[in-house]
């Protein structure tokens, strides 16, 4: 078995996790984290093909077609190849989205002004001005973006509303058609499916994810302080868990694992799991008699067995992801495996050392 790493100068145990964290921060700063379609918005085309496709060749071809930064991934599967092409949010969809929200903010106001003006003759100036604005928004959407060739000015508000809605979906469908046509030119495929995440939806996902992180952090922090009631051990537990998430993010940056809803869920789970090992360590250290160095090492043996079983189960999921190319499996398993390995370093290198220093210093 392992020798007790906490005998002698236990501060040395800090080195590996601190190195890992420094590396993780460097990667994240240098490469950033690849936001998936869920959070960044955009269009994801998934193709099933019989033959393999050269990813960088397809990327350059699609750039020539006028798509900004297309990202191509090719996977071999048990039934041919799976090609994923990610397109950044297109300018026309972004514009359509903002026109849509302006239009729907203004429409009820103009309707009510119109009724007021027609029945009482009041607010004529405001009515004309706002109506003009509404019709120019509609003009840009219907004839500009959707290319529908309609005379907008002779439509009443109701017809305008209907036309606006169909032109909005036309903008989406046209874009997806354009994407489909561009791919079709260069790749022959058996099936294609397109998923577009609108700017509104991706913004919502980001907001919700932010809330989840916030509430998760608050709940876990409160709970940890309630359980341990003393500042240093509680802080040590939280530092351990936080370091683990930093290491996981670094790994995501290094391996190019995108941040999607699935990998986000994996990160949240990681917080819970990494707190588990930290709690085990802290309870064993604080609430038992005996030599702190022995107790820490003892806890480490239990903790590493725990982490090993979890890593092993997630490796099975990872292998499954490799076979099926199901991105949900891949994103969850790869993030958790990296995080669990990071957790071993963070818990037994950082949290344990802080606790040991705290307990030995008090003697």
């Amino acid at each position, binding site marked *: 078995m392992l020798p007790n790493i906490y005998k002698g100068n236990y501060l040395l145990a800090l080195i590996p996790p601190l190195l890992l964290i420094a590396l993780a921060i460097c990667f994240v700063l240098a490469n950033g984290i690849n936001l998936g379609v869920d959070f960044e918005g955009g269009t994801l085309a998934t193709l099933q093909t019989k033959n393999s496709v050269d990813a960088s060749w397809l990327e350059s071809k699609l750039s020539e077609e006028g798509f900004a930064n297309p990202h191509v991934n090719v996977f071999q599967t048990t039934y041919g190849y799976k090609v994923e092409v990610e397109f950044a949010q297109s300018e026309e969809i972004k514009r359509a989205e903002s026109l849509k929200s302006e239009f729907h903010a203004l429409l009820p106001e103009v309707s009510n002004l119109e009724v007021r003006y027609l029945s009482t003759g009041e607010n004529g100036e405001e009515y004309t001005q706002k109506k003009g604005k509404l019709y120019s928004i509609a003009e840009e959407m219907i004839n500009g973006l959707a290319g529908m060739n309609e005379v907008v000015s002779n439509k*009443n508000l109701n017809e305008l509303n209907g036309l606006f809605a169909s032109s909005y979906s036309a903008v989406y469908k046209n874009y997806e058609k354009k994407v489909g046509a561009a791919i079709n030119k260069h790749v022959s495929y058996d099936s294609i499916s*397109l*998923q577009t995440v609108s700017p509104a939806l991706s913004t919502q996902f980001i907001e919700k994810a932010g809330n989840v992180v916030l509430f*998760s952090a608050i709940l876990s922090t409160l*709970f940890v302080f309630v359980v341990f009631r003393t500042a240093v051990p509680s802080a040590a537990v939280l530092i351990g868990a936080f370091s683990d998430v930093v290491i996981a993010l670094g790994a995501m940056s290094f391996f190019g694992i995108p941040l999607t809803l699935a990998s986000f869920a994996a990160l949240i789970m990681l917080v819970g799991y990494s707190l588990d090992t930290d*709690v085990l360590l802290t309870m064993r250290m604080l609430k038992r008699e005996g030599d702190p160095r022995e107790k820490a090492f003892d806890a480490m043996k239990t903790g590493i067995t725990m982490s*090993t079983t979890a890593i092993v189960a997630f490796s099975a999921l990872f292998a499954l992801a490799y076979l099926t190319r199901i991105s*949900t499996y891949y994103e969850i398993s790869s993030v958790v495996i990296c995080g669990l390995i990071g957790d071993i370093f963070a818990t037994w290198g950082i949290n344990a050392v802080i606790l040991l220093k705290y307990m030995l210093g008090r003697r």
Partner: protein
Amino acid sequence: MFEKFPSLGQLKNDRRFVFILLLGALMFAGMFIYPIYIGFLLILSLLIFGTLSSVWKEPHIRLSALFLLLILAVSAIAVHGIKFGIDFMGGTRIPIVLEHSVSDLTMQDMVNTIKKRASVIGLTEIKVKAVGNSEIYVELPSADEEMVSRVEDILEKQGVYLGVVDGKTAITGQDILPGTIYRVPTQYLGGSDWGVGFSITKAGAEHFAEIVKGKANYPLYMFLDRPSNAFVVVNREQLKESLPESVEMDDALAAMKEALELDGDNTIIVFEEDVLPGMNLSNRTYAVLRKNAPQSVKDIFSSAGIMTKEVEDNEMIPEISYGGVGGAMVVAKWEAVGLLSSPFLSPQITDGIPSYSYSITGPASGAGQEKVLNAERRVKEIESILKGGALPVRITLGSKTTIPAPLGQEFLRLSLIGLLVAFLIVSLVISLTYRRLNVILPVIVVTLAEVIVLIAITGSFTIDLATMAGIIAAVGVSVDAQIIITDELLKKHGTKEEKLDKAMSIINTNVTVAILAMLPLLFSGMVEIIGFAVATILGALLGALLSRPAYAAIAGELI
């Protein structure tokens, strides 16, 4: 080895044991009586048995609680099967984009209405779920293109509002100005219980004023998706039975005919028994009939190429009320033909002078709180009729994703193999770490039980990709507590009870932390990953409440 376990004779007199047994039987019966609540019953059993086995520490109680839950889970799977999402069954996902973001309440309305719409074509397995607050996913377990495009048609169709006065079209959905429909505040109701106001376009206002001129107190028949040139096929007996005693059949029929009158349209009422082979079906393209109408009647229409719409029995029965000119009999509601409300025209608006704003007001039945609720319901109803559809917000369909059934089944097969592999290698790690059969076997048995119960619970709802990932993860995470217990018990000093208590306090803290961290995800409404949160949280609960105490009981005896 098991000398501390009570004998069978002792068990009979053990009140706790008998109580648990009775509870188990009760849940078992519940599962058969209310099969749709199987998932909730299993969770309830988990919570009850779990609490009992934390309070009552006798090993045989803890073990029998786990065993009973396992039996419940296995029979749930056997009776009810496991539901899988379209990723595993094959199917089609159609995203629906809303015109603008809506509140949670409106979203709930939308989801329910879309479910109802989609269920018209008889596919009960259609899933409708909100994604954020501006998108909805509709998932159907079929990749058949014809079926998918039928569903798309139904979803895309907006309702058409039509207001008819004295057989003439007075107002249509096209006349109502967008964004002007509002609820009339109480102080302006003037004696009515509820009111909905709206404004109409200039052309609409002029037309309406002309049509209703001199028609004071006539009913305004408000239709949503009124069938045109149709046969409305009524069952005579049923109609007769449903009418109040004071109403003559002929008077009721006359009122129904009047409600259907519309210039340029030729919709008529026929009785089921009059639909006979050789009847004149020309000039009409559509028939509305009961779902339970005789097959022979349905066949006559379908063989003549006439489209049919099938409705429930009660929708075919008109609601009669009195009022209007001279207190005449009027059809107030008749869902089969889309007649949803018939307010009477107030004399002030029948003078021929166009007005741009109108309101519909009326009484609500009941008293007190019930009356308020009824009024609220009426307001919602009228609002949705005027908006030309049950949907409060206009929708557009996004591009669909199709997963062919063989591919889905392949995914499922591989995923189940993955689950098995995870289980086997975790067992291998445990075996290599402890190298003692009396540790390895209980760990494996308890973990297996946990996975089965987890599959039964999640499978009674739906297992999608994220849930499956959570279940596989649970295999690796759920053994952690067993490891903590074992390591504690293998220590040399301290009594068994002390060691178990120490282990349990660590585990309880762990499980609480894990659940607290995941809880916000569970309530985030991010449907794509909620399954993962559910599986992880259930796995943790299951472990803390049942399998860990049960394992402690076995391990405590063995080590």
